[in-house]
């Protein structure tokens, strides 16, 4: 555990936040001007969920098992 690893882990959080903010603004405008475009809106929702589940919920830890207790 060192400061460099911590900074990297926090940086991942910032990157995901920027992605989520951009996608949320994007879907807001799609909803405003093209409310029948359900497929792109669902694709954006899936993409947002993917980033949250992978980087915030760390789903990889579930499959890593015993030997990996790193804080990815």
């Amino acid at each position, binding site marked *: *555990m060192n*400061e460099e690893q911590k900074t990297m882990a926090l940086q991942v959080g910032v990157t995901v936040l920027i992605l989520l903010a951009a996608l949320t603004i994007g879907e807001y405008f799609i909803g405003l001007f093209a409310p029948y475009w359900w497929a792109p809106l669902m694709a954006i929702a899936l993409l947002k969920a993917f980033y949250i589940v992978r980087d915030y919920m760390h789903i990889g830890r579930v499959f890593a098992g015993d030997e990996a207790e790193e804080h990815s």
Partner: protein
Amino acid sequence: MSTGTLSIADYHKKTVTNRLGLWLFIVSDAFVFAGLFIARFYLYGAGVRPELSQIVGLIVTSILVLSSFFANRGEVSMAYGDTKGYFRNTLITIILGIAFLIGVVGVEWQIAPYGPDHDALWSLFYTMTGFHAFHVLTGVIFLIIVYRNARKGLYTAERHFPVEAAAVYWHFVDVVWVFFYPALYLIGLPPI
């Protein structure tokens, strides 16, 4: 057996099992939300949505996304032994969670043009947002309990599964809203 008496290796082994249990719970809970999500499209398709304030929808969604960011920072801080960082970020997460609840139940529900007994669409709207809000409330309570335990010094960088569990649950609540937001606020137009 208290986790405090376990060796680090045993604690990590126990965490692997605890983590699996947490995810099994989350998957089973997700099925209930998925049922509500499917019901919304099964009944009304992609052409109709409830008449809601788009601005309120965007604000509450932004609040929840931001809260997830701070929940992540809190968990990372604890994982690296920065308890001050954990306290600061978790407190912000709790405040944002309460702000989300106020936005949905205190604002959106009050300005909505119809009540839950108007028709199936509005009944679904209140069920979806109400069920989700209840999860946000339990998430806030969970975060407060873990925060309080952390204040007592119960968690360390090596032993902090409850901190991780509270954060993962919080992110799950965010993931649910990621799908509910377009389903309720963006897809389709209000019926004329």
